[in-house]
């Protein structure tokens, strides 16, 4: 179980868990609930460079299409193939098995993201 209090968040409803210079990224439970059942996930290629606040992937539910934004600038070092094979992991465990990508980042850049309290006030109480 991910310690939610240690996470950082974006206004695009992503969460970031930093371990050294590797940021693990997923979408929040709030975002997964809003999308409904996720049926297709497209993630960036391992080795590709991503820029903060740009679209790097897609998350489709039966009802709608959500865009995945890079929360930080860096290089993609891993993607979650399990979630590509079984997109329902995003709904079942958004903060755990439903993680999406790992990016090497400048650890200092994480300070620009929202903390948990700020994110929860953004969504009106959900996370």
């Amino acid at each position, binding site marked *: 179980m991910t310690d939610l209090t240690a996470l950082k968040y974006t206004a695009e409803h992503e969460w970031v868990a930093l371990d050294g210079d590797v940021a693990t990224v997923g979408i929040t439970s709030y975002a997964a*609930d809003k999308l*409904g*059942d996720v*049926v*297709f996930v*497209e993630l960036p290629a391992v080795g590709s460079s991503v820029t903060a606040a740009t679209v790097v992937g*897609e998350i*489709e*539910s*039966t*009802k*709608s*299409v959500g865009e995945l934004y890079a929360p930080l600038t860096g290089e993609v070092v891993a993607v979650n193939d399990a979630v590509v094979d079984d997109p*329902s992991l995003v*709904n079942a465990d958004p903060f755990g098995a439903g993680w999406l990508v790992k990016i090497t980042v400048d650890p200092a850049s994480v300070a620009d993201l929202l903390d948990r309290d700020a994110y929860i006030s953004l969504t009106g109480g959900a996370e």
Partner: protein
Amino acid sequence: MTELRTTALHDRHEALGASFTDFGGWLMPVRYSSDLAEHHAVRTAAGLFDISHMAEFAVEGAEAAAFLDYALAGAVSPMRVGKAKYSLVLAESGGIVDDVIVYRIADHRFLVIANAGNRDAVASAFRERVGDFEVELEDHTDGMSLIAVQGPAARAVVEATAGIADVAPAFADLGYYAWSSGSFEGAPLFVARTGYTGEDGFELLVPNPVAPTLWDALLAAGEPLGLVPAGLAARDTLRLEAGMPLYGHELSLDIVPAQAGLGRVVAVDKDDFVGKAGLAAVVVPDAPVLVGLVCDGRRAGRAGYAVFDATEAETPVGEITSGALSPTLGHPIAMAFVSPAASAPGTELFIDVRGTRIPATVTDLPFYRRNK
């Protein structure tokens, strides 16, 4: 912003943990837990839907049948008491104001169920069309609740539900597109064997005060049979698989029935009906027509996406009106209006999915047909 209306079952939906959405001015359950699980439950067992947002009009009087022959596209007067019929309210132009189901309650009494978002449009169309017809119109929407039980287990669910009594004809004897009357806890119950999912099913109309009790009784009886409450998200993917049009997507004032494959609904031989002259005058040889599209893979075309006849073509041949990854079939499906030249089943087309052209094949509707 206008305050959204809620149905008599709103507290039931909240207690079941529903997420809500604005639909036709009503705050309606979009899903309870998983829209895919709800969809599959309807295909394999049964789902319970609150569709109380839909509008109910009573049409009564010595000339009720003649009035509806004039006000609707279909032939209403030949209908037998006890039967239901899908029909259209047309504008003078021949465009579609709404799609409705008409039930013949008695020789001189009908029930018309219309879409929530078109309640005012249908009410005013009917009022304008009354003229000298000897007929009374009454809008019963605010006092009535409509609950749908849909799926292969639907009949077993309604038969097992405590408090439902005196249903005649009995559920087992009720044909598709026919209705029965009965009672629930002493209140009048109207049951039609109709639906919007492509499965067998029933739609139960009761006065608001008994609706929560009926909802609870259906859930209790249905739970051992696999019944789950289901929201509008599942209802939309179910009706899409079944090739059923949704007003505002496949139907609009700018679409005439033949374009949407509904030419058979229009009784062109009737002496006169609103839209007859408009339809006769509309001869647009290249008017787009509604088709089904199927794709491989998992990326679905969505409403508004352009359809092309070649990967490099610059001018679209059509546009998607509804699309999703089909939960039952496992591949993307869509309904689209395309030019007649591109409409033959088997035609290879391309959907522009956010900049990527994905191959799609024109197919007959519906995408899914239940085994009867």
